[in-house]
């Protein structure tokens, strides 16, 4: 039993929001749930790297689709996102990602 690590990279223009955050952290690693840590890259960066560590092995293609949908919706370029997952369903992953975005706009 090993953990699976997945890496995703997206390149695009960061949206000009008045995002005043440096880093954000939400969630807990528990069965069926995950934590997300988002760190902002220097202002000009147009790359976003997403690092997933998960105990549920073999769901790479589902992660790809959920994260693609997330990036297509929110265009979160210019950050580094770390996810520690303990077998969350796509529904939970999506919800937490959207909660992260809401947290950003709250800051």
């Amino acid at each position: 039993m090993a953990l699976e690590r997945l890496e995703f990279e997206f390149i695009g223009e960061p949206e000009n929001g008045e995002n005043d955050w440096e880093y954000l952290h939400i969630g807990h690693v528990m069965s069926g749930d995950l934590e997300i840590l988002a760190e902002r890259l220097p202002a000009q960066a147009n790359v976003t790297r997403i690092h997933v560590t998960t105990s549920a092995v073999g769901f790479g293609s589902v992660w790809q689709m959920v994260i693609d949908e997330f990036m297509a919706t929110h265009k979160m370029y210019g950050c580094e996102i770390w996810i520690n997952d303990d077998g969350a369903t796509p529904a939970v992953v999506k919800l937490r990602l959207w909660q992260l975005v809401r947290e950003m706009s709250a800051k």
Partner: protein
Amino acid sequence: MESMAARRTEWTLRKNEFQKRLCEGRQFVDEPGSKTVNPADCVSLLEAVIRSGDRVALEGNNQKQADFLADCLCNVDVERVNNLHMVQSVIALPSHCELFERGIAGLADFSYSSPQSARVAQMVSDGKMKIGEIHTYLELFGRYFVDLTPDVALVTAISADRAGNLYTGPNTEDTPTIVEATKFRQGIVVAQVEKIVDKLPRVDIPGEWVDFLVPVGRPCYTEPLFTRDPALITDVHVLMAMMVIKGIYAQYGVKSLNHGIGFGTCAIELLLPTFAESLGLKGKVCSHWTVNPHPSLIPAIECGFVESIHSFGSEVGMEDYMANRPDVFFVGPDGSMRSNRAMCQVAGHYAVDAFVGSTLQMDRYGNSSTAVAGRIAGFGGAPNMGCDPPGRRHSTASWLRAGRESTMTRGLIGPVPRGRKLVIQMVETFGAGRVPSFVHRLDAWTLMEEAGFKVPPIMMYGDAITHLVTEEGIAHLLRCDSLEQRESAIKAVAGYTDLGREANPKETLELRRQGIVQTPEDLGIDIGDANTSHLAARSIRDLVEWSDGLYRPPDRFREW
């Protein structure tokens, strides 16, 4: 004209048989003329009044259980009493299975067996239990009055007086139905009670209908089946509940309804005083209920959302609360609530705007099932709640609107206006252990093959479902004009399951444009804002506080 057939001359065979058994049973009463039998003599009593091959209704409900009588029946001499045909709504207790293991019973007609589902499947495959049919509650009750009338009923009540009158209290459930069917066809009725008292709070079953009383000295076992700890509601449940309230209840003006016992519906109940209130829905939705007294309804009741609740059974710990809210619950002159499964099933079938439930599996056609291979769980009452009753004739705003939107009905009855009950399924695309809820082939097919059923045990057929709600959105299936379009709408909200991945993005966009599919975004719901902080109560303790201490949760739920 002279008839060719010989004339029947015997008209009291059942009555004679009853008298014979009554006499034999009476040797065990505590004094001449009494109906009371010492618990220690109960096994002998059962041996005296039950004959091999009898149809026996052993009261097994969702909540209360005639557990003492069940244990006694397990201990009868199998040489004397065997091959019984059990006709009971729920196979709930280990002793219900023991009857078959020991050869006392051989055949079962029932409705629900979820608590013993694995054991029932095993007994069927070992040839120890034969299943007649698996019914819905109303169906089985119906057959009690046609071809499955019990010869003997073994029921349970809280207390009795010496004349045999029974007080069943809030958990009346199936008792009146079982006793009426049995007694009026000259059957024997035995009741276990906690104690015999001089004066009952009220009479739920007339004493004339009861032949023997067994005062057990303790309450019968009662399962708090409808208590959901709000702490276990997830953010995903909240998201789906918000969609149901805003996208369905508010749109159709759903006033009367039945809820299943899942956490999704529990979330809806706890969002009424907060989210629904903020949408201005108080008085407009969810005023009349046919449900068990869910503790999670307390905040909505306290906030004035709820006008009335009629119940199938009671719920442990809710007794005092209900007694103090007689405007809302069905409370007798004695001050305590009375439930009745048959009545409430009828109400939930015919008289409500909507049913909301959840399921384990759904196929591409919208057929849903909770069947799992290796487990026989039965149906209970859900199929009668979760369907549009063809016999309904009265109208409500929600019923009319749903009828207008039911595109496919026109293909069958032409342009005649007709209403429709809303049947809403809340399904997370993946269940526990990331098992997909949307499948190409329901496990019900496998179970059918294993258990030798004639049809797969479908809980709700696709044609009954008007709305499918997943975390991805709502599919307004009633608005679809073909089976093909229904499939596309189901796929559109089936998320990242294999079935969901078959969805054509272009087609999904078109379905959204037509209002057949609505995402949270389409409904103006921010996914990132869906979280449990919106719930009016987030723990059992919060519910106790809402009730001013009138709700007394069972010990297993008290975490303070």
